[in-house]
């Protein structure tokens, strides 16, 4: 396809200074990662159908999958498909093995292990999607909602979950001791020289 827009979109990840992204993680496509974000090894962030912008202070654990993929009934090469940007806010936690395709995620959310968030869900802030819960609806999840249980019942909690600052600090100190990190690239496009 000789679409000039697609030729100009950068295909490499832009990792802000202060973020810790392990080399063993898979970051494909146009992905922007904010400061103080930790991406564990074996995490996968795949921007197929559009760019992904990840904010600051997020924690993306092993085998988590954040994917901006084409909706199932649309072929990748068909005309008229605009690349939609996936935005992820600050202080979110993507626990081990979760799958997130939600296009818009706010701040302070927690997606627990093996949870599955569909493409048409919009998480506001303070939401907790419990372990193994699948949320495939087409809705805006209100603030401070907890989805839990095998039937995905919901309740509203009184306060948002605490940001994992202690854990983030610990990981930013320890992970570089055991893993190589991906080079940070400033958002303007010029790579840092070591």
């Amino acid at each position: 396809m000789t679409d000039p827009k697609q030729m100009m979109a950068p295909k490499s990840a832009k990792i802000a200074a202060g973020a810790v992204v392990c080399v063993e993680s898979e970051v494909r496509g146009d992905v922007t990662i904010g400061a103080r974000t930790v991406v564990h090894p074996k995490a996968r962030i795949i921007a197929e159908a559009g760019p992904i912008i990840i904010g600051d202070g997020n924690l993306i654990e092993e085998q988590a999958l954040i994917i901006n993929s084409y909706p199932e009934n649309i072929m990748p090469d068909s005309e008229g498909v605009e690349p939609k940007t996936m935005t992820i806010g600050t202080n979110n936690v993507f626990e081990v093995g979760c799958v997130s395709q939600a296009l818009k995620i706010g701040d302070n959310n927690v997606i627990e292990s093996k949870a599955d968030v569909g493409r048409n869900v919009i998480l506001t802030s303070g939401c907790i999607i419990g372990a193994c819960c699948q949320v495939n609806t087409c809705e805006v999840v209100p603030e401070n909602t907890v989805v839990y249980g095998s039937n995905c019942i919901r309740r509203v909690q009184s306060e948002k979950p605490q940001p994992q600052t202690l854990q983030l600090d610990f990981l930013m100190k320890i992970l570089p001791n055991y893993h190589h990190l991906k080079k940070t690239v400033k958002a303007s496009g010029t790579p840092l020289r070591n």
Partner: protein
Amino acid sequence: MASLLQPDRVIYLVRGEKRIRAPLSQLYFCRYCSELRSLECVSHEVDSHYCPSCLENMPSAEAKVKKNRCANCFDCPCCMHTLSTRATNIPAPLPDDPTKTTMKKAYYLACGFCRWTSRDVGMADKSVASGGWQEPENPHAQRISKLIEYYQQLAHREKQERDRKKLARRRQCMPLAFSEKYGLGTRLQRQRPGAPISALAGLSLKEGEDKKEITIEPAQALDEVEPLPEDCYTRPVSLPEVTTLRQRLLQPDFQPAGASQLHPRHKHLLMKRSLRCRKCEHNLSKPEFNPTSIKFKIQLVAVSYIPEVRIMSIPNLRHMKVSLSPASVFGTAPAALGVNVASELEDSSHHLCPFCSIVAFRKSNKIGFFIKVIPQKEEDADVTVTFRMRHDFRNLAAPIRASEEGGDAPPEPIWLSHHVELRLGPLAA
């Protein structure tokens, strides 16, 4: 296929007071009566109480006083998970110098599953890690205890009158059950002859307490009832604030309708029970006393004594056509037992399957054989094969009668026969 090993595929029949069909893994074998027993034909007795989260053993008397609740652990009122205590640092003014603040630890209860916290209901953070949490008291507690005392006294008085009448008429002894009006049910009393009825004693009074008369005033009906709020029909229901029926009924004292009144309750204790054969009064299953141990002191389960039949594979079953279905019999140690399989004529609810069994292979403790299946009914959902299995059983536990020569005679094997049903599933199209 793992579905062939599902427990409900092979069912054994237990001939007790009722005819019960259950898989072998759920049955017990009384080796003194040499019969299978199911959970319904044994008597259950409470061994010990323990808390499932802190695994603390509690004597029965203490459990009765605490209403079978643990003293340390709490249940989440929202999802019934165990609550954990979390600590935060809050600034608090020093007692001697109000201007300076120091960090003090404050504790609150939180649920890891549904993220409920004790702050949701308005319970203040406590400064002690454990023991600071109180359950709200039932507003009707006094009236209830007074009513219970009154009825205890009434029952005691009636029992005395009846006993006096019994002696006067000089009749045969009436069964013990009739003299206790508000005591245990008669069935439970009958099954424990001679055993003291301790922790389950209902409302029996102690002797010598009938001196003071207790009077109660009857409940009074009120004419005026609180009116419903005006927007009762028009206000939209906010689902997160309404409690579910299950949450409500777990707190029968209050049954709150609003989620902001759901207080945590102490965790319910679990109990270890021992099972006893009703005919010979021997123990079939007796667990260890320690709550952390899962072993048994006495464990007479059926799988260790009765050979187990397993379906090896299910062929395509067609109406009125013969199929061969392989099955195997797993014996228990010690090996060397003889097994006979014969067909059994049953009532018409099962499929009559005249078959002949052929031993296909033998291997250590396993025998494989074929069952010829001819489904009789066309549209039935489940093809069931029933047969009778006989095996010999050496009772190593029974006392060996000393023979006259003085030598030890080996225990005589007795032949036990069991009625087994195999569920082979639906007919193939």
